[in-house]
Each structure stands twice: as C-alpha cells, then as structure tokens.
C-alpha cells in the first residue's frame, strides 16, 4: 500500500485529500508513523519527530492513528492476496510477499497477477497499491519501490545485475541507515561498489549479515516465501506525555507496560529467555539494555528484571520513550538439546504473584 495509514485517513476523511497529512503523535511530541505523498514532498518522512516534520511542512495536518481501522483493512487486503496464492508472507500490515509460481487461477504471468490484485484493492477497498515483481523476495521488494505510488515494476534476471549495480546502497532492502552509513565510510555508495568487496571482507566487517549483503548485490536471495513466519520477539512501548527525568518515575510507568506485555505474552502464548528494555532519550538517541536467563522467564522474573534494567545505569538525559520486549523464544527446531526442568516445581513459589 502506498503511505498506508495516511492513505486510509485520506480515503475515510475526504477533507484530508490532496493535503499534507501525517499520521502519528501530536505536533509537540510523538513521531510520524506515516506521511501522505503531499507531505513527503516537503521532506516529511515516517519515524521523523513530529516537531521536525511540522518545521519542514508548516501546513502539515496531524492525525491520530486508528490502528483498529488499519487492521481491518489489512485483513481485507490479505484476503485478496489469498485469492491468488496461499504462499503469502506478511511483511507489515500493508505489505506482503506472494509466491505466485503456482497460483489459483493458473495465470501465466506475475505481472498480470500484480495488475489484477492492485485493481481489486482499488475497486474493493479504495486504496492505491504498488507492486514489485521479480524472481526472489529481495528483488521484488526493491522493484516495488521503483514506480511508487500506484505503479508496478518488474526486474527480470537479465536486468537484475545492472539494476543492482546502479542502485544506491541505502535503497537496498535490509540495509538500513546505520549499515549504509558504515558502508559509505568504506566507499560503498552503490551496488557496484559493494560488489568489489570479497565475502571474507564483508563477513569480517558485518558478521553474519556480510554473507547476505554479498549475495543480494548479486541478485541471490534464497529465502522462500514463508507464510508461517514465527514471531521472534514481542514488545510494547510507550512515548510519554512529558519527558521523564528520574528512574523512580520510569519505575512507576513500568507496571502499565508490564500489564500490556503480559497481556500480549498470554495472547501469543510465547515464552522467552531474554528481556530487553528500550529507552529513547530526549534527543532521539536510543539505548537498549537486556538480560538473558538460561530458562524461560516467568512473570515474576520479568517484573524483577525490568526493574533491575531500569536501575542498571544512570540516565544520560531525559527519556521520551520506554519499551519492554521479550525474545529468545522456544523455537521448535531448537527443542532438541533443551535441558528439562522439574515439572510443577516453581508454580507455587514464583508464579503466584502475577496479579497486582
């Protein structure tokens, strides 16, 4: 979907159409979650602080997000996808990978399917969508950016090499701001620059991701479209009305976050070994602190550890956002080699105090 949240708002509220709209927090605090194309012309981008966005575009209209509404539409869009194939891997509320090698209508061309899907989204829901078509997930995602908004593009195997060589490094899917900065320091500005480096060099510089970068610039991405992608972490966060200065104040808002986290853990039925505390400072720099136990954390553990993490080191400056996340889940394939624990050993002593 193109500027999904913003487009939904413009669709639902005709007054907003043709105007620069930012979905997100208010003008003073908060962050832009999505910007309409009219707003993007002013340089407003998602994840930008509302304050800066307002400076860039004084006529910017801030709209509160309505996630429930977006979710409903997201499901409707996904249903359209499923009409063509069961191999749908959601990437976010408004994006998904579709493997249409074999599709339910036996259509011979992916381009044709993309056209149909986009037309149905427009007709049945009323939103513009863009599509990218290629022979792997990475290239399809890159292709989807080419003719945005409301367009589609194909990268054929023949075109891939040349296209990737010319592609600016920050437009590679999976290379974010931090990595692209690092690469630029190494003189890597586009795909061709990246291609000059050996696999050995890239793995030494970027660890595991090195191999990934080495492959994608050559158009290689073997990851299949996985309709059951397992959740790897679960987190909740809260941007405060006013910056928080003291650990004791963080400690007070912690219980609300914990309630939300526990609710999500219950709902998703996950168990994790790692708890991460995320702090975003006044200047938008971010810090994470985490603790891992060699067993699954109970609610009581999470309570205790979250407190410890808050006090682990002193705050550098006022805090605008705090988040808590659980990760390091029990993956089915990792179950072998797991040291078992005595059953019902801890229930009475540690798991009782989760209602307060």
């Amino acid at each position, binding site marked *: 979907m193109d500027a999904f949240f913003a487009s939904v708002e413009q669709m639902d509220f005709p007054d907003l159409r043709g105007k620069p709209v930012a979905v997100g927090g208010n003008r003073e605090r908060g962050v832009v979650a999505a910007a309409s194309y009219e707003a993007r012309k002013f340089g407003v981008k998602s994840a930008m602080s509302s304050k800066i966005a307002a400076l860039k575009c004084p006529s910017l209209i801030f709209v509160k997000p309505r996630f429930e509404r977006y979710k409903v539409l997201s499901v409707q869009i996904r249903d359209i996808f499923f009409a063509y194939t069961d191999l749908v891997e959601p990437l976010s509320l408004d994006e998904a990978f579709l493997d249409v090698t074999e599709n339910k209508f036996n259509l011979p061309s992916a381009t044709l399917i993309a056209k149909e899907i986009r037309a149905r989204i427009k007709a049945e829901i009323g939103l513009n969508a863009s599509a990218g078509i290629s022979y792997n997930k990475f290239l399809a995602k890159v292709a989807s950016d080419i003719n945005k908004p409301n367009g589609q593009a194909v990268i054929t195997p023949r075109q891939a090499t040349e296209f990737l060589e010319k592609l600016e490094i920050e437009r590679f899917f999976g290379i974010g701001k931090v990595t692209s900065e690092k690469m630029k320091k190494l003189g890597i500005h586009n795909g061709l620059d990246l291609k000059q480096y050996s696999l050995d060099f890239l793995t030494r510089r970027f660890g595991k991701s090195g191999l990934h970068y080495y492959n994608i610039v050559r158009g290689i991405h073997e990851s299949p479209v996985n309709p059951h992608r397992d959740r790897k972490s679960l987190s909740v966060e809260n941007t405060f009305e006013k910056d928080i200065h003291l650990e004791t104040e963080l400690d007070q808002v912690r219980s609300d976050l914990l309630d939300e986290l526990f609710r999500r853990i219950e709902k998703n039925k996950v168990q994790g070994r790692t708890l991460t505390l995320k702090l975003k400072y006044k200047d938008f720099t971010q810090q994470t602190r985490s603790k891992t136990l060699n067993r699954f954390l109970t609610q009581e553990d999470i309570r205790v550890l979250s407190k410890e993490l808050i006090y682990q080191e002193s705050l550098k400056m006022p805090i605008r956002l705090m988040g808590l996340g659980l990760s390091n889940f029990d993956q089915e394939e990792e179950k072998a*080699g797991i040291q*078992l*624990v005595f059953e*019902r050993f801890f229930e009475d002593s*540690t798991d009782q105090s989760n209602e307060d």
Partner: protein
Amino acid sequence: MKFIVSSSSLLKHLSSINGVVTTNPVVPILENFLFEIKDSKLTVTASDLQTSMITEIDVEAKEDGNIAVPAKILIETLKNLPEQPVTFSIDKETYSIEISSDNGRYKLAGENATDFPKIPVVTNATTVDMSTEVLSNAINNTIFATSNDELRPAMTGVYVNLSDTNVTFVATDGHRLIRYRRVDIASPEAASIIIPRKALNLLKATLPSENVPIAVDFNNSNAYFRFSNIKMICRLIDERFPDYENVIPLDNNNDMTIDRMEFLSSLRRIAIYANKTTHQVRLKLTGSELQISAEDLDFSNEANERLSCEHEGEDIEIGFNAKFLVEMLNNINAKEITLKFSAPNRAGLILPSDMKENEDILMLVMPVMLSNYV
C-alpha cells in the same frame, strides 16, 4: 593500645576467616578485620553483613581496646614475614596502626572499631549437635547442585530439614536435585532452614580435617556454627523451598546397575565430544549393554562407547547433560550405582548400590531432550 602476637599464629587465625571479606563491600569498613582485645584475648571478626566469622587468639596485652584493621594489607604483611612475635601499637586518636617486627616497621591506617557493623546474636535458638565430618559430608554432597539463579534465591542455598529422627539436606537448581539424609543426628524441634551457599563454602574451607564436635544454633533468621576456636554466623535465606518431595519419582522401574568408576570414566571421555553448550550425551540401553554416545554437529565431532551393565526393564534411549552426571557420580561414594528411569522426558534417579551406615543419598536429574537425527 599495644599487643604482641606470634605472626604465624595470627596469620593462621586470620586466614581461616578471611574468606568472608569481599573486595568491594557495601560498607567500606567491611574491608577490615575487627580486632577486639579483652583480658589478653584477641577476638577477630570478619563480615560481609550476610555472613560473619569470628576467631579468638591469645595475645600479650596490658590494656583492652578495639580497632578495625585493613584485611588485605595485614594478611599480605603476615604472609611475607618470617615467624616471630610482632607488636601492634595503635593510636586511639588517629586509628593509625604500627606493626613492628625484627625486620622493620609498617604503618597502616585503621578505622574506628565502633563503625564496624554489629554482629547479630542468635536468640531463642534451637541447638543441634553434630560432628564436623557429618557437616562436611553433607555440604560436599549437596552444594554442587545449588543454583546460581539470583531470581530464585531459595535454590541458591542448601535446604536443611530437621526432625527428631533425622536431618535432611537438599540442594537443587531445577534440573537436578540431591537429597542427603543423616539418621545419626536429630533436632529437639522440627524446623526447616535454607543456608546460603557462600556460608557453606566458607564452612567447607574452614572445617578442620580432624573430626571435632560442632554446635549449630539457629532461629528463623540466623544460624550460628561453633567449632574449634571459630564461630560463624550467617543470615538464612528467608524463602519457601520448592516442594521437592513431589518431584521424586516413585515409579521408575527401569533399573540399570553399573560400576561407578567405569561409567564415570566413560562419560568423561564421551563428554569431550559433546556439544559445548548442552553437554548432551545419549545413553542407549539395549538388554545388558549400555551405549554412551555424543556428537557435536558444529565441529563434526562424535564418540561412542559400550559398557556392560545389569539392566531390568524395557530398552530405552535417554539424553543427559554429561556435566551433571559426572558431578553426581563424583560425589557418590559407592563401587556400584543404580540408575532408575521411566521415560526419556522424566527425571532419572541415581542411587548408590549400597548405602553407608547412617546416611541415605538420593540424586535426581532431568534429561535433555534428544534430537532424532541419529
């Protein structure tokens, strides 16, 4: 204030309580020994607030007095002095301490003894008498199975259940459990306490090699150990210990009896080839043959051995953490042991084939889930 004491005798006494002193204590004065002289008797106290140890030594002193002496620098000094009488002179105003020996003079800054935290007194105590041998056996048999998990403090100590017929020591980390019972000691009153690992480790290091009587006084919050010329007082862990009796299986009817040393040596060799994080070894019982194997897929390492054993029950394949098994077998004092299983995902029991008089030991270990690629 002034006193004279033998350098080696003082060092010996200080060394026996020095383990309590931590390098970075909550209260800085705890980096000191508290010296208290009364009627030519020097009482030295070391403490970390949770655990305190006290020892007494005769000295030559004309007057009474107290001072806190930096532990590390004093021990170092005494270690490096040849045996001789040394004189301590303390300035009551500045708390400065001067040690003079045949070799020379050493000056160090002491602290006001009144700043040293007060050591708790155990009131309304129940007293149990035992011997250092019994206590040291109990500690050695259990302490290795305590947990490091600070979020579950109950398991970071050894649970001691006292009754009028026996005393039971239990340690567990949730994966394995040791129950060590003595029927030759008893308590006038039934009680349960959890003694922290640090205190037990200190006792283990300090208990004399010859067997002497030891008196243990305890109430709800503290335990007090008295033996030879040493006293130790420790704060108890005030937590509920897991309901351990419930996890001891009663229906493990698949029995394997095997020579302990043979089994242990084999496990030690096989463990070298096991995965470095799980230490997983596979025990495969087919009739009276035990096959022990391990593999580390990351390094393409693998090993297997075959041993003969006595076996009663169905053939079974079960995985364990080799480190746990090795530790447990190391701590059993018997020629043969019996392993009792029920299923690859249920706790296994390890028992010595013949028990020593007055003691009863039971070890329990949870398996590691086996993968099925072999």
